[in-house]
């Protein structure tokens, strides 16, 4: 629904615009010519700045130049719709669309290529106020210690190192040591698969008690050794 109404809008608008005599339309002998006026805010009002800046109408179809006070005049253009751009090698200005109807009425609006139906009125005579320095260059990346440290590669190398250095310290705690031992004991108590298969294939199964005894014996012997 929104889409439809939008389309209708566009169509209507385009019809209206088309019906206006266009910029490069039929060259009638008695066509009226109009002047476009405006001012440009300059970063600094030196005279070389004035000379570097050019006002272009519809990609250079007509041009205007800046006077000392930053004002410009584009003289004798037929009615139509134009994009007015401020061209400066170092600064970027927002362009403005100017529409002059056949009765000589001026209307300035923000340039919106995507939503041409969207009218954002601007003052006339034109005022180019918004400018920003053109950033043509990238800044080179500086080498920083933090960049190096937080690099994933470095992190992956450093963290294990830390683990190796710090973990043995933790291990010195006797309780943790014991816990670890318990864990290993647990593992030992689990029946091993290889043993199962061995027993399965060989047939003469040593009894479970025997096994346990054996392990216990080993343990006790160890302990006795310790005591020694």
């Amino acid at each position: 629904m929104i889409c439809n109404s939008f389309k209708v809008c566009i169509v209507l608008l385009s019809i209206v615009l088309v019906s206006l005599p266009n910029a490069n339309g039929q060259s009638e002998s008695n066509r009226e010519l109009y002047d476009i006026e405006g001012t440009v805010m300059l970063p600094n009002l030196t005279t070389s700045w004035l000379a570097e800046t050019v006002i272009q109408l519809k990609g250079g179809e007509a041009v205007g130049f800046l006077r000392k006070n930053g004002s410009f005049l584009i003289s004798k253009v037929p009615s139509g719709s134009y994009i007015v751009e401020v061209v400066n090698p170092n600064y970027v200005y927002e362009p403005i669309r100017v529409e002059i109807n056949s009765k000589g009425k001026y209307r300035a609006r923000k340039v919106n290529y995507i939503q041409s139906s969207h009218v954002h009125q601007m003052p006339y005579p034109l005022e180019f106020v918004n400018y920003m320095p053109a950033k043509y260059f990238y800044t080179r990346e500086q080498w920083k210690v933090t960049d190096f440290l937080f690099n994933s590669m470095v992190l992956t190398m450093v963290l294990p190192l830390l683990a190796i250095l710090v973990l043995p310290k933790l291990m010195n705690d006797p309780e943790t040591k014991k816990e670890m031992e318990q864990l290993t004991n647990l593992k030992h108590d689990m029946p091993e698969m290889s043993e199962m298969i061995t027993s399965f294939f060989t047939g003469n199964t040593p009894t479970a008690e025997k096994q346990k005894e054996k392990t216990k014996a080993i343990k006790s012997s160890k302990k006795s050794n310790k005591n020694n």
Partner: protein
Amino acid sequence: MMHYKLIFLFCSVLSGIYCSDTSYDSISDVYLEHELIPNAGFTKRSSILVNLESRNDVVSTTTINDSDIQLLKQLASKNELYRLKVTVRTLSGKETRFLTFTRACLIVGSKLNDILTLHLDHLDSPFAVNLATTSNNCNSFNELDTSNFTTTVFFRRPESSPVPDTATYIQKMERERDAREKGKSSNNKSMLGKYWMYILPLVIFMMIAGASNPEARQ
């Protein structure tokens, strides 16, 4: 045959896309002349009546005499080019001449089945004619058993240019804006409400750890 079908499909789709709005001096017939002996001049092949209003592709069959068939076979065996002169006449009698060609062996190899594509400009007047055959067979020119040329005439009109799809883009932007607004409202939920699924396991884990530790101490 496969190619033939594909071309047919393509052409019919194309002709469907374009709808002409101007009543134009429309094409009445297509007059074909071919060259059977290299550089010896063109001889008449057929004349095809065309009705552009019906928007149908035209299929026409013409018989050519045996001597021409023999010449055609000779042309094919020498791997020469088969040139076709096409004269398109309009109702008002205006004539436009075109020239097109293909390899003679293809004409014979496809058993005299050929396709003539008439390219029409935006005003429906022809600007080019292309000749193609229904098969890419270029070997079996001795097995020609027919003397009937079966010609299919297609009409192709230009497509219309793409336009910047601003409408969809604007819709998309609007959708995204709505989504963002929605996201903002959901942001108002407390941190707990949003990240409970991460916080809960952490808390449980901490509790377990805390519970197990004192026991170990004891």
